[in-house]
């Protein structure tokens, strides 16, 4: 789905097959990623997975370092969410966050589209959300200055703000989008969000064919729940991106439907957009595999395996919209395996026609 001309995916070595790092994660990650491998095997996709497990229960950083090395080696990864346990001391940072910052995956891209087969309160939503992925409130720089008083630093830099704004405008132009909206809180955080907004304006001046406007984050959420159709492309710092992407995912039907991608200059990591571990529904065969399957299609597009990507994507969307085989999170009664079987059936019919 999202292919940026500036990113060169690794050339296929080893007999025309790609190697992709797979990080199962916790909760529903392992079972859903197994289904992805099943579908890939069935469809004869020329991708081999190098599986790297990351244990969230240990305090050492060895596991995540191994995963990062594997991604550096392969250039592309597909991952489930790694749980962050609160019982650990604060020095143990969120593994997902460490992965994003080490690989400098500065852009998190999510495309929220209303699906015709899913019942939602709002229709005709088509929003692209580009979220700065490495700094902002997620800098993990905290200290207790005096006992009982904790300071947490939010860092905004000119370089990263320019970089993400540039990414947003280039993506908007490439996809033929008309408008980019910057989401901020510069009336309160005058210097930090003010800098972000200023960088967005600077970049916008170089794209006169695209309209640029800005909106304060609380007004944005209010508008999203009343008139989400007004938004086209949105760009924002890290925390607001977290909020807005979750609101939009909820508007189009839930966390089980929307795939997300994290792009850096050299690497790309694909996962579900809302990054949930789904601990409460793990191993019960009720999780929705749509988001992970669509994320794997985004990955195939990135590897320039467009035919395979379209094949699997069409099968997933047909299952969703025509067959209407829905899992519990979108109001149906199907199981995960039933949905996956349906996808594979549709692929089989397509291949043999």
């Amino acid at each position: 789905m999202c292919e940026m001309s500036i990113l060169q995916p690794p050339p296929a070595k080893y007999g025309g097959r790609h190697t992709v790092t797979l990080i199962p994660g916790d909760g529903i990650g392992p079972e859903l990623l197994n289904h992805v491998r099943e579908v890939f095997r069935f469809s004869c996709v020329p991708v081999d997975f190098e599986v790297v497990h990351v244990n969230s229960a240990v305090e050492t950083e060895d596991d995540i370092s191994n995963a990062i090395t594997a991604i550096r080696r392969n250039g592309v990864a597909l991952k489930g969410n790694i749980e962050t346990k609160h019982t650990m001391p604060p020095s143990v940072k969120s593994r997902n966050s460490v992965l994003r910052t080490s690989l400098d995956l500065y852009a998190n891209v999510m495309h929220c589209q209303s699906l015709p087969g899913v019942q939602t309160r709002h229709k005709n939503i088509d929003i692209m959300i580009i979220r700065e992925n490495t700094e902002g409130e997620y800098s993990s720089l905290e200290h207790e200055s005096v006992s009982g008083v904790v300071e947490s630093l939010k860092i905004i830099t000119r370089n990263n703000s320019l970089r993400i704004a540039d990414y947003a405008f280039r993506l908007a132009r490439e996809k033929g989008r008309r408008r980019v909206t910057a989401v901020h809180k510069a009336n309160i955080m005058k210097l930090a969000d003010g800098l972000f907004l200023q960088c967005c304006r600077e970049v916008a001046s170089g794209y006169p064919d695209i309209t640029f406007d800005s909106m304060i984050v609380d007004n944005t959420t209010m508008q999203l729940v009343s008139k989400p159709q007004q938004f086209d492309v949105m760009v924002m710092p890290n925390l607001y991106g977290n909020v807005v992407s979750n609101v939009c995912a909820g508007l189009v039907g839930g966390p089980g439907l929307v795939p997300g991608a994290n792009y850096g200059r050299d690497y790309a990591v694909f996962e579900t957009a809302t990054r949930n571990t789904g601990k409460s529904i793990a191993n019960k065969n009720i999780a929705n595999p749509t988001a992970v399957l669509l994320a794997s299609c985004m990955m195939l597009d990135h590897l320039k395996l467009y035919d395979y990507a379209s094949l699997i994507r069409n099968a997933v969307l047909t299952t969703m919209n025509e067959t209407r085989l829905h899992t519990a999170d979108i109001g149906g009664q199907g199981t995960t395996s039933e949905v996956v079987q349906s996808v594979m059936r549709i692929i089989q019919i397509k291949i043999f026609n």
Partner: protein
Amino acid sequence: MAGNVLRSMVIIRNHTPEPCLCPGPRSPQTSLLYLPRSVFQLCRDSEELAVRRPALSSASFSRGMQTVTLIPGDGIGPEISTAVMKIFEAANAPIRWEERNVTAIKGPGGRWMIPPDAKESMDRSKIGLKGPLKTPIAAGHPSMNLLLRKTFDLYANVRPCVSIEGYQTPYTDVNLVTIRENTEGEYSGIEHVIVDGVVQSIKLITEEASRRIAEYAFEYARNNQRASVTAVHKANIMRMSDGLFLRKCREVAETYKDIKFTEMYLDTVCLNMVQDPTQFDVLVMPNLYGDILSDLCAGLIGGLGVTPSGNIGANGVAIFESVHGTAPDIAGMDLANPTALLLSAVMMLRHMGLHDHGNKIQTACFDTIREKKVLTKDLGGNSKCSEFTAEICRRVQDLD
């Protein structure tokens, strides 16, 4: 008996609806009562208790008029304040209004402050109702809302969001309350330029403020018969700051075993809120998340034009306000919608223990909106503000 009576002067402030054990009439002014020493002691204890605990019990206790400081505000502020006063009169609510202006003035020492007569009135009445205030640009002084917050240490912002029957939104059956810590967090305003092109903004979380807001949230839940309190945080990323906030909430939850306590990530709350808002009850959170979530919830029920809001401060002060803007384009044209200020005023009545009057006015307001015959433009009709107000007054009187 006469030998045991001690002459004592008891100052009874009229902000507390807590049943005071002092006999005798309540009046807004200082009362000289002749009481036995033991009763005097009881009075003082209960008074202290009332000042310490947020006065939100459902005990309906009010004899005589209560004073409320009214701040009409700017733009459409004056007309909607007049509308509210008219409706209160029609409902025979025992409220005496004291109008004050809070435009900032420079005090001794060069610091900006609110006018002393406004401060004096609020300190005396302890209850305020505020219309929308203009945000000054290049006026040299900070926003009035910020000044009010600092002057009265308004630490909790409470927004009950209830779906209005008759004002259709895609979300029905919303019934939740957001309680937002209003003094620190991301809005501390502490920012620095480290080097050229790198800015840092400091988010401050303190033990004291977190404990205070958590206690308020649980107290509110208990006094308003709410079943659960959910703490909203991002402690997976902001381990120490939101971790501290969460710890304090957990500690306070221990002392309120009758209220269910849950914790949820901010992103999960947002995700679930737009899919099924009925699963939430009372939400407590730090400043930024509260800002975003409370506006999100306002959007669910129809926007800022119909959302009430209250700010609770230390020392028993409470200021209720409408959170929409001043709407200068329709000011003075009798087109404004007074619903937000009216519902905030109803919230105020409940806070003061005047539940009957509050319910009456709210029912009249909701009935008017449900009937859809007399509605202001933003609600989908084409009546004037005065017509809308008159209709509510009529219904209020009919309800008697």
